């Protein structure tokens, strides 16, 4: 069965409907960034194989049930003046009953075999130097990504090289979350006090959206992250950038910003208070999003600093509304230049 082919037919059908309705396609067609039905990684492909295989079996069963169902409804509805010879119809039939016990068993065995095989496949831990290990820590409501071998950490944005197995070691510090990149593969729960493992890869470069899939509090819906899958060369460049010492602080404005940062932000954003751990901001200038959900620009950064809770309900980030416009300017410039 061609996975792609089936998906294309569905897409064409949906598009046809859209054209008829004259609608905006981005509001009904799934995006490449997070579509389970068009996976960009091995794990996602395996899941999808099984999804389609099980749908195929189920459609056969459904067709049989519906055929009998419709036949019965049409044939045996009560008609005036027609009396059926009831003695013909028994209230049990051993042969039939055996058939509809054994056939489903056969179908389930057919489904169970690939299920078990894939379950073990997906649990396999990749070995060798070629494997990138990333430690994922889920926090209320942000994601921390540590690259232990490369020796740095970042937040909200996960970079992975195309074509390489990435082995995630997933844990948490507060409540349950679940780490999910729909376009790359299945999810894994984040459980404080426990390290879960998950292996994904990306076969195609692109920007994929990650989600938290376990209810984790007020801003569960906003606990997004981005996965940047890039060619090895680009990935290496990113690694080099992230491992390099931070850009020097040059202008007076940036210096003022640094002072503000060191007098207030640093408390949470440099791991001084373990109960209020914020994302590492050493390389904030390289980010593509703010708080995982907003577009990366100065306006959004200021809005976030002024009133984070209005953007992400329940976040631990404090308001910085006590800064005047000039100070805020300085802080944002400092942050955006930390490359």
């Amino acid at each position, binding site marked *: 069965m061609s996975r792609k082919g089936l998906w294309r037919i569905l897409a064409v059908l949906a598009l046809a409907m859209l054209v008829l309705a004259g609608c905006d396609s981005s*509001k*009904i067609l*799934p*995006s490449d*960034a*997070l579509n*389970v*039905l068009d996976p960009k990684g091995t*794990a996602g492909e*395996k*899941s999808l194989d099984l*999804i389609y295989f*099980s749908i195929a079996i*189920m459609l056969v*069963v*459904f067709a049989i049930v519906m055929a*009998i*169902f419709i036949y019965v*409804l049409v044939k045996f509805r*009560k008609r005036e003046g027609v009396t*059926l010879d009831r003695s*013909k*119809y028994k209230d*049990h*039939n051993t042969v*039939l009953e055996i058939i*509809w*016990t054994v056939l*489903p068993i056969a179908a*389930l065995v057919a*489904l*169970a075999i690939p*299920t*078990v095989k*894939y*379950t073990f496949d*997906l649990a396999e831990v990749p070995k060798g130097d070629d494997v990138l290990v990333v430690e994922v820590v889920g926090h209320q409501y942000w994601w921390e990504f540590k690259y232990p071998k490369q020796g740095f950490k970042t937040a909200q944005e996960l970079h992975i090289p195309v074509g390489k197995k990435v082995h995630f070691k997933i844990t948490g510090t507060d*409540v*349950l979350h679940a780490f999910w990149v*729909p*376009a790359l*593969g*299945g*999810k*894994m729960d984040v*459980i*404080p*006090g*426990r390290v879960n493992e998950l292996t994904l890869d990306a076969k195609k470069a692109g920007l994929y*959206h990650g*989600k938290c*899939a*376990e*209810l984790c509090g*007020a801003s*569960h*819906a*906003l606990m*997004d992250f981005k996965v940047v899958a890039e060619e090895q060369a680009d990935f290496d460049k990113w690694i080099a950038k992230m491992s390099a010492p931070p850009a020097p602080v040059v202008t007076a404005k940036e210096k003022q910003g640094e002072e503000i940062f060191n007098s207030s932000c640093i408390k949470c954003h440099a791991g001084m208070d373990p109960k209020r751990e914020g994302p590492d901001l050493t390389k904030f200038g390289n980010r593509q999003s703010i708080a995982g959900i907003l577009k990366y620009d100065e306006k959004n950064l200021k809005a976030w600093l002024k009133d984070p809770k209005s953007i992400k*309900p329940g976040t631990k980030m404090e308001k910085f509304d006590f800064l005047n416009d000039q100070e805020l300017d300085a802080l944002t410039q400092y942050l955006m230049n930390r490359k």
Partner: protein
Amino acid sequence: MGTLLIMIVFGLFFAAIFTGGYNNTLIQRARKTTAWDWLTSVDHKKIGVMYFMAGIFYFVVGGLEALFMRYQLLVPGNDAFVGRTFNELLTMHGTTMIFFAAMPLIFGLINVVMPLQIGARDVAFPFLNSLGFWLFFFGALLTNMGWIFGGAPDAGWTSYVQLALNEYSPGPGVDYYVLGLQIAGAGTTMSGINFLVTILNMRTKGMSLLRMPMFTWTSLITSVLIIFAMPPLTIALLLLMMDRLFGANFFDHVMGGSAVLWEHLFWIFGHPEVYIVVLPAFGIMSDIFSTFSKKKLFGYNSMVFATSLIGFLGFMVWVHHMFTVGLGPVSNSIFAIATMLIAIPTGIKVFNWLFTMWGGELTFPVAMKWAIGFIPTFVIGGMTGIMLAAPPADFQYQDSYFVVAHFHYVLIGGTVFALLAGAYYWWPKMFGKMLSERLGNWHFWLFFIGFHLTFFPQHFLGLFGMPRRVFTYEPNVGLEYINQVSTFGAILMGIGTIIFAWNMIQSFRSKKIAAADPWDGRSLEWATETPVPFYNFAQLPEVRGVDAFWLEKQAGNKQMTPAEPLGKIHMPSGSHIPFLMSIALFVGGWGLIARSWQIGVMGLLAFGVTMFMRSFDRDHGFYVKPKELLDKEAKS
């Protein structure tokens, strides 16, 4: 101040009990009111009606919560119900629908119908029956008090830790969940024991186990499930209460606790719970298919076997809710296969229903329409269930809208359709009137179409990457229109429900008494008069086979053959103690929620006092002469 007030009330309460210093004339007058009659009733039909009406009420409440959520999800970035408020809505929607709508509606039907179907005059423990209802009632009330006082529970109906712990859900919200469900759950366990003993011990002459109507059979299996599935919930709630109220460390990972432990305990209860609410639905459908096909249920014995097997397997599959917890491929595979096995007995049931209709003489009143609508709907829900059972695929479905679609297909397409079918079918026995078929048709079609519009698209929401329990979603990734269709469908379901409410009101206002056997029924409940006298049968009937009443009608008899001579009937007396007991626990529970230990302890003490009241209550019921006996005496 509040504490003081409640202490005074309690003081009066105790003083009144110990001194017998009630105001007797007032009490006497109160005893004559209808409210007192219902409050103290131990008549299974009245308790059933109260369960049913409470269930309908909470069905509407849960439905409103759902509509609020669908409204919030109409467009991305909507700000009507965000953050904590949305979490309260989703938590209370799930909790309400499962515990306070589905369960009481089922208990209502079991209470009204099951004793009639086995030819009994009451349940085995009428007092416990009343207590079970009032515990449910006050438990549900307590859980919903959060909306008014201090915030509703907001950690999901599964209430996963650590989110449900004090640190992450401060305030009383989750406490309402813990104590409200604990009280309601105690009532549920009692009812389970009560139904089981009733079915095993109280059957009339000739009603062997393998002659019982399928609804009674499924009630029996459900009761067994309740007895074995509720205790894990009791313990889970107890441990969570200890953690939240008394500083224990069952779930705090820093102190060695385990979040996975909660998931196990919850789902060891939670999965059988699904069968608790769906097996009686199968029973209702079986009875309805048989009645409106004018045929005996096809494969009766295999149906009994399948029901029992589903009940048994229901305890072996809970880990399929936890495939992404990281328990490893061995455990995942075992539970995957166990889950798939359930499809076999379920399939047997579906084919048996189809072949019940095969060769029948089908008519389609509203009750039958629900049953017909149930088949494709439930089959879809069952099939997505099997798809979810495969862990590699489940890794993608888990906690996405696909799962939401799946369990609504099962719980609405299975349970709710069946309950509504049962409502139309047994309404004349419950209330002595009929529901309008015309309004019923509107209700059915709006609800049925609305249901599929709401939930079928949600499969795709999940596959397009939308997690469940989110208050908003990304724009321009293909989610907008599908969400809008879903919301539109929900509105149709809402309109359908309003029509149903109107139908009920019309029926209550109507003066026309229903016929005793309006559907040309097959089982014993249709052999009673309408309205059913409180002693059910003047003479208990003798049963000669499956479809007892139908057999008699086929043999040309208008009535069942009596199994006993006409005589005085012993009936249990009503009691106000169940109501007092439940109030005591309600107050005690609320005291604990408010962290007022005095009130909590006093509530428990008051409960202890009521237990003594019950133990020393030597009322052994009374004898009544049925109408038939009075007529005969008058003649002679």
